[in-house]
């Protein structure tokens, strides 16, 4: 039988969103007291927890120390219970290593590492529940955690996954859409300057379509950026109310 119809003639997606609409984003900052910074973020049914330690002195091998900037260390993992099929996920499997590397690259582009020479910043992200766009959700959660830790960044880093169906770009793919044979692309953006921190794509897509897709991704990222900004402001207000008491 026919597979799923990802975009109906009426312009609705499987879950009822229109092509450019994002999933609902909810987030909280400062969820752990021990860490220097932490945040919990839900983007639809994908839920992630990010924790930041640092900047602190280099640990482990000193050879990695950089004299003019801080080293960013990222670790990505998925909870055993995060997907529909329960699976043991050993640390350091190929997928998480790759994801960790991508996160590291993303934050190296955003964090003002030159302010902390010879030190290290650790970012730990865990996917608690996975429903598509894992990378993007991790980036968004980690951004909030880094802000919570008070580490200066050039701008928010906002990420979003977009796909291409029936000549239409779809923003913020869910798991069913990612699996439905869509060429998808993940993009992390510094929204104010419009700089791209990372762009990742595994699927085949014709060059002529790329520009439209990137444009759609940037619009989506800016949308995410607005939400993150609101969360941060909200958090600041709460904290300032608390401290003024």
């Amino acid at each position: 039988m026919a597979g799923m119809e990802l975009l109906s003639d009426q312009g609705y997606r499987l879950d009822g969103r229109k092509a450019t609409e994002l999933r609902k984003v909810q987030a909280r900052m400062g969820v752990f007291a021990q860490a220097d910074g932490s945040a919990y973020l839900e983007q639809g049914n994908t839920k992630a927890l990010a924790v930041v330690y640092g900047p602190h002195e280099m640990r482990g091998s000193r050879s990695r120390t950089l004299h003019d900037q801080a080293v960013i260390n990222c670790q990505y993992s998925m909870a055993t219970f995060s997907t529909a099929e329960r699976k043991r996920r050993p640390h350091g499997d190929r997928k998480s290593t790759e994801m960790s590397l991508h996160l590291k690259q993303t934050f190296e582009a955003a964090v003002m590492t030159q302010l902390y020479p010879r030190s290290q910043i650790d970012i730990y992200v865990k996917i608690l529940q996975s429903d598509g766009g894992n990378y993007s959700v991790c980036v968004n959660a980690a951004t909030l955690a880094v802000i919570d830790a008070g580490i200066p960044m050039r701008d928010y880093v906002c990420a979003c996954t977009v796909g291409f169906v029936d000549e239409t770009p779809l923003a913020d793919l869910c798991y069913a859409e990612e699996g439905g044979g869509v060429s998808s692309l993940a993009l992390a953006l510094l929204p104010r300057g419009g700089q791209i921190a990372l762009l990742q794509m595994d699927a085949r897509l014709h060059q002529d379509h790329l520009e439209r897709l990137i444009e759609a991704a940037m619009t989506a990222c800016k949308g995410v950026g607005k939400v993150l900004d609101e969360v941060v402001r909200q958090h600041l207000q709460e904290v300032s109310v608390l401290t003024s008491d």
Partner: protein
Amino acid sequence: MLKSKTFVKKTRSGRVMKIVREHYLRDDIWCGSEACDECKQESTVLQQEACIESNLCSYPHYLIPDTNVVLHQIDVLGDPVIRNVIILQTVLQEVRHRSAPVYKRLKDIMHEKEKHFYTFTNEHHRETFIEREPGESANDRNDRAIRVAARWYSQHLKTPKSSTDGLKVVLLTNDQGNKQKAEDSGLLVYKCEEYIKSLIANPDLMDRLALSSDDKNEITSSKVLFPEHLPLSRIQTGIKSGSFLQGTFRASRDNYLEATVFVQGEGEDSTEVLIQGLQDLNRAVHQDVVAVQLLPRNQWVAPSSVVLQDEGTAKDDDIEEEEEEKVLRISAHEAARKPTGKVVGIIKRNWRPFCGMLNVSQIKESTRHLFTPADRRIPRIRIETRQASTLAGQRIMVAIDGWPKDSRYPNGHFVRSLGSAGEKDTEEEVLLLEHDVPHQAFSQAVLSFLPKMPWAITPEDMVRREDLRHLTVCSVDPPGCTDIDDALHCRDLENGNLEVGVHIADVSHFIRPGNALDKEAASRGTTVYLCGKRIDMVPELLSSNLCSLRSNVERLTFSCIWEMNHKAEILKTRFTKSVINSKASLTYAEAQMRIDDATKNDSITKSLRGLNKLAKILKRQRIEKGALTLSSMEVRFHMDSETHDPIDLQTKELMETNSMVEEFMLLANISVAQKIYDEFAECALLRKHPPPPPSNYDILLKAAKSKDVEIHTDSAKALADSLDVARVDGFPYFNTLLRILATRCMMQAVYFCSGMDSDFHHYGLASPIYTHFTSPIRRYADIIVHRLLAAAIGADSTYPDLMDKHKQSALCINLNYRHKMAQYAQRASVSFHTQLFFKNRGIVNEEGFVLFVRKNAIIVLIPKFGLEGTVFFDTKDKTAPNLVFDEEGPTLNVEQHTFHIFDKVKVTISLDDSNIQHQKIRMALIDPVIPGVSVPAPDIEPQAKKPKLD
């Protein structure tokens, strides 16, 4: 607003998985009604004055059909009378899931503006979404969702403005329970039948209603005739455990009590299971996918050679049948027995609407009649109609609705009439339908993707396109051709070489991947040519206008340009999108005349001469490499210009210019095939022609040997060479006959995807690689090849499906099927016109040759008409003559006379129209005279001497 949807899904490995999906509810989904001013919609679909005249509903109203109504009554919904219908998303999804053909039709209907069908996305509407309750089945939930949406509509439309109009919604359902619940909640609800009956001035529509399950009980006695079908879950378990087999049910054409089930095994190895008797056939219909259980070995039987047609009046008691079944079971040698089984369940029905005729019931007042399909493999169908007397003698279409276990025949409903039987238009329609040739008018959705007229080449079109308008390009085609897809040019280059260009209509410029126009063309696969009629693959605006390379207009093309020396060796090949302005559209004869006329020396003629010269060299080279030139009789009818009846019939003759055009088309196809394969090794769409297995040649070898001629079949080259020298003195026609036989030994050429196959060889053309590039107006394969080539030279973009070898492979299967069916339809059309011709001619005497010898007949070819017919020696009404068949010869002794292949005979030809659905040409032997077998030569009828009208 956010809802999360949780459901449980079984994975392929059998584990149970819980799937959680988000489900957003919105408040910006509008009702689509013109009468509403609450919704902020930009455009509306449903009319304010929604008037269908009905006895039940005297007020304007919108219809909301439930899923089953859509699935079963799509014929009624498609009627122009039915307008202003709300299709709920719930219904649309269920239909999509349950029947692809109905879904497609529904979508077509929804695209028609004048039908005013609106899709309401109720599953995402904040007020109409409902959650499944504990213990509620998925079906019940969907029924409830439909009721909730209907309720919402009826309340929504009660706004102050519209209440004055009294606009209402009417729910249509055939489900008693659902109807009751809807009534209880105060909805207007009718059964589909009730509602359709109430429509004023539409008595015909009644007949198109499918019978619902409630009515079935009335039709037959409560006696159970067939064993129950097993539920799907048990079938699956059975197939897994090996106790059942899954296969395609193929009914026998000659015996309605017999069928085989074709079970596809691993790789090449597949088996056939024989099924005999009504009980074991158990309501399976030709082409259904069924589950069968093998009978114990001692109950196995042999296929019977008896011809049994299900004829006469309706058989509701099975006494007669038992008699007939006994006939089947008598003679079965131990050795001849085949694996025999019985149908235990249906996995997938493959019902389509069938063409046929009504056997009007003997009882005058009866509204129930049996319908006999034209295809003998389909059982008779019982339908209900009040217009039996009108429909008698007409070809009609009937769809099966169901086959309950207590009914001898499947129940169906009248779909439409095709016209009087025997009439040309009707029969043409029948043969299109029976060969599954899509031939409806193009839907609105498809037409919406056509370029807007007046069309002109814009500067954007010229990007990445070469301007070749200055070249002397011309086209050469058969007379009356309006879909010209190729044009040629040839000119001298300064370096002494020649430049030859083949310019093909740039159809892929107009048909963009994935839109409705593209999908329709992909589904049609090919243009079908019948005698005097053409069923286009793409709408006429493209086929006969914008893509047709007519003279003196600017047309977009895709060109393949070679630089050649005078020995026709290719020095350079390049491909480019281009624009041309053809200087002349010639027929083969006109082109031939220009070439032959030494006084003509204009640029067109020079170009033609250059082409002709090169083509001759190319052809010689090709034949030297071992390409086959085979012969098949192509027949052309001379039609009467007014009645369009055939008045004369002649075999098509070929001119030098035919083969000139053909040579360059072949060359272009080969060049393009190589290019796209080099660029896209995994997903090039190619065409191959497998060599026939040696046993195929048996008949050719035997036939040749009977005339002491030796034929070598080791390779295409050997075959071609030995055919060339095969001559018999005093028998000039011998070589042609041999070539006709050789053609019959060949395999079908097929499209395939290069990534899915390793053998690319084209046997007939002796080319290591081949594809179709030159006729994109009439073949979809060429459109794909154009897209691949365009991507290869950077003139256009690729898209995912083009690069997906599995998707392309699936497309090839459809294209091969459509081409085969088109060929059959074409043959059927020729044979129908031959019949018409002989009907008008009366009985004719002709000379012919024996082409094949069979056990009880000879097959005779009449070269004059390209007609093949069978002379039977064991007719039913006469005592059979003494027949001795020798397979080695092969020869057939009839009394004292022995028939060999290639014998010259004289026969009479007449039309046998005793069975109006299956008219056929009958041949009887005149010479040689065999007492008791041959017939006396009839007087030549004066009719035949009438002056010809063409």
